[in-house]
């Protein structure tokens, strides 16, 4: 998601009455986060045609086993199937390549029974041996997996018990595995394609999905072609059988203005990662803008509660109350991104609203009570120490997060808290995060499972200090990670979110939202559970 630079003042094209009508519907439903489908669902889908989709970034490597990039998911999702699928509406895990599965109580052994008819596009069968080859490959050091291997934390091996049955085993509980198995990161690729080595997979992946990769020109485009004879779509899909689109061309255009201009001038049918400002302009010009809140950790600020004086919960609560996230989303994101209502986004299974109300008066009261008095320049201090926070954030920033930092700086100044802005290269920010050398920090994280709270906020891998050290939170998250019992998980994650809000361990700001602009020919442009566009059900009207 690139930074929104400027609206280039493009003159609106013809406004079609029908398109305007659908766009309005999208705005209305969009407010409730339900706008997952383009207009005209009632019509009969038409097969054929090429969808050109302009996206902002090149995956660099197409193989989701290796690459951690969302761009690799966007291209890979139509090409590789997964053992299980996740319903974008309910978050439920449903059968896909595996028709059934069981797990032991501690979530250490998963037994999958595969369906009998699935084949890879190279003709080989999707059998238990192929699945084993995939998981073994992901954890092999030579694969240099940057994310997928992490989902298999504690993996001790896969046993093929029959042609179509297998057991995946972990040395420690891994309740997050099942949801992770729904993503393309753990998608099942043809073992035949592994022989050429990981670099070759970066150029072409072979899976059992409804599309195949026919062309990849780095930094320019990825072309996917429909595969004939696809019969194993999960029931979360709107249809069964072959995909409707004959070809999908993912054209890479990093510049926001170029992407929306290409849509307006009819050079492409759909554009991804539309900026809120461009979304407003596109809607005015009669285009549909689909929005989907992405699952995972909302864009949130974190005050390092291990550092004095921020060990005092009152100070963190004051900061949380002084930050007006409603103003942030209105000013910077034209309300196209919703204000966050919990550290998890509403599309994440296990989400529970746990808000902190904005109140400058309450914030002031808390700071006064804690003994911090305003000095001559308005900044509070106590025992000769100024109440200030250094914020090291990634530059160049995406989603205008640099402007957001300035706005928050102004908001906190009103209550006497000083924020020192320190833009830095990504590597530097990450180094500070992992070493604990930070005061104010901001992140968002894409993953459709509440366990993301444990893996991101509580990770102490390699002896690094966890981002949010809190024993009550740790207990709630450990309980959720140790079971697959839906009710127990739900309750423990509700407790975790409550704890985070009460103690102001995280200050949620906005829900990262994928905005997709489409022309009026595009039908059923939908999102997967991760919140990324998928093209299997999409079709083009005349």
């Amino acid at each position: 998601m690139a930074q929104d630079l400027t609206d280039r003042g493009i003159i609106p094209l013809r406004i079609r009455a029908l398109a305007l009508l659908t766009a309005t519907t999208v705005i209305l439903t969009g407010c409730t986060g339900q706008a997952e489908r383009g207009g005209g669902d009632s019509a009969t889908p038409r097969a054929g045609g090429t969808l050109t989709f302009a996206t902002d970034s090149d995956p660099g490597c197409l193989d989701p086993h290796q690459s951690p990039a969302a761009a690799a998911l966007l291209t890979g999702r139509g090409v590789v199937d997964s053992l299980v699928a996740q319903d974008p509406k309910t978050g439920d895990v449903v059968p896909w390549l595996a028709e059934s599965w069981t797990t032991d109580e501690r979530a250490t052994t998963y037994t999958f029974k595969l369906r009998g008819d699935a084949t890879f596009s190279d003709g080989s069968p999707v059998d238990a041996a192929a699945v084993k080859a995939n998981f073994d490959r992901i954890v092999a050091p030579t694969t240099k997996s940057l994310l997928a291997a992490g989902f298999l934390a504690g993996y001790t091996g896969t046993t093929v018990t029959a042609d179509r049955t297998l057991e995946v085993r972990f040395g420690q509980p891994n309740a997050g595995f099942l949801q992770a198995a729904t993503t393309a990161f753990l998608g099942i690729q043809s073992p035949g394609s592994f022989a050429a080595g990981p670099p070759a997979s970066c150029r072409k992946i072979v899976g059992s999905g409804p599309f195949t990769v026919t062309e990849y020109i780095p930094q320019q485009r990825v072309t996917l072609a429909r595969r004939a004879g696809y019969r194993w779509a999960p029931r979360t899909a709107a249809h069964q059988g072959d995909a409707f689109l004959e070809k999908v061309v993912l054209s890479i255009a990093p510049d926001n203005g170029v992407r929306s201009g290409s849509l307006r001038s009819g050079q492409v049918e759909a554009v991804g990662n539309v900026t809120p400002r461009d979304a407003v302009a596109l809607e005015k010009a009669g285009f549909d803008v689909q929005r989907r809140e992405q699952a995972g950790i909302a864009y949130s600020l974190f005050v390092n509660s291990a550092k004095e004086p921020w060990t005092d919960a009152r100070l963190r609560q004051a900061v949380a109350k002084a930050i007006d996230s409603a103003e942030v989303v209105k000013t910077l994101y034209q309300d196209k991104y919703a204000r966050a209502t919990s550290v998890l986004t509403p599309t994440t299974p296990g989400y529970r609203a746990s808000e902190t109300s904005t109140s400058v008066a309450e914030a002031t009261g808390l700071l006064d009570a804690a003994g911090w008095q305003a000095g001559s320049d308005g900044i509070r201090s106590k025992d000769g120490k100024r109440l200030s926070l250094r914020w090291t954030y990634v530059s160049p920033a995406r989603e205008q997060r640099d402007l957001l930092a300035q706005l928050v700086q102004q908001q906190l100044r009103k209550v006497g808290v000083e924020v020192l802005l320190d833009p830095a290269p990504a590597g530097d920010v990450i180094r500070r995060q992992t070493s604990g050398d930070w005061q104010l920090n901001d992140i968002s994280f894409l993953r459709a499972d509440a366990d993301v709270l444990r893996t991101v906020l509580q990770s102490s891998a390699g002896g690094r200090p966890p981002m949010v050290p809190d024993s009550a939170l740790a207990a709630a998250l450990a309980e959720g990670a140790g079971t697959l019992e839906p009710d127990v998980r739900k309750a423990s994650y509700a407790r975790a979110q409550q704890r985070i809000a009460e103690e102001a361990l995280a200050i949620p700001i906005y829900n990262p939202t994928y905005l997709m602009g489409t022309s009026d020919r595009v039908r059923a442009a939908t999102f997967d559970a991760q919140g990324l566009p998928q093209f299997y059900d999409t079709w083009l009207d005349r």
Partner: protein
Amino acid sequence: MSWARSGDRSGIRSTMVRRRLLSAVTVLIGVVTVAFAVVHLIPGDPVQTMLGTGGAFVDPAQEAALRHELRLDRSLPDQYFAFLASAARGDFGTSFQTGEPVTRLIAEAAPASLSLAGAALLLGALIGTAIAVLSRLTDSRVLGSVLAVLPVLAMSLPAYWVAAVLLQFFSFRLGLVPALGGTGIRGLILPALTMSLPTAGVVAQVLASGLRAAEHESYVLMARAKGATRARVVWRHMLRNTALPAITLTGTTVGSLLGAAVVTETIFGRPGLGRLIITSLNAHDYPVIQGVAAVLGATMILISLLVDLLFTYLDPRVVSTAVWR
């Protein structure tokens, strides 16, 4: 030009080429060393950057294995000499991101950048010459002052702005050329035009002032006296004499051309060396950054060598005064 013996001149020329090549190798080693140093000075660790926030998922043993796999666990001098030794054989290692040989990535990206830079240089020279000649030939006061301002404008407009305006007008409004993924000449026109402007500005300014100064040279008066038309004098006599500084300066704009390539290639969604280096920088892909820097450095050195050589053909004095002895 009959007074200089041609055999002499080619001897001097080859001495010059030898010496310049020798110094080029030294400069090149300097360039790759600086590239290595700069890459390692970028704050942040490549492995942690690659893992990103996702690093939270990866256990330390995996991280260490990755570090070892990428040979980042060796000492810095060790990495440097290993890099120099393989670079001398034309091997820049493999990309951290994809594991592919850096030379392959460069070979893939280079043709697109070369054709873009070549087209931009050619276009820049043509536009610049046209402006300069026209400003000398015109009698219109208004046209004259417009032509005097154009070069300054061409040099000072930022590439991202020019690209946006060109796209807006020729692609989005008129639909003459595709904004994305254009191939062949149609895809090359707008990006080449964007990148040609600084070169056009330099050429126009230098040529125009040269032409102005040459107006009162005796050879011009002579030609005029013999009855040559004004246009013929400018084309046949004055241009050749004033071309030298313009050519040198065109050579020096190649550097800024590469800078503009980063912006231009990004906006037009074209593959190329500029895109390659910017994505590698963001990803801390050390081998690719070093490889591209070395190749670009070598290109710059080669171009300045060619410019010097071209000089010896255009101006015999360069050789006869034995600057290169």
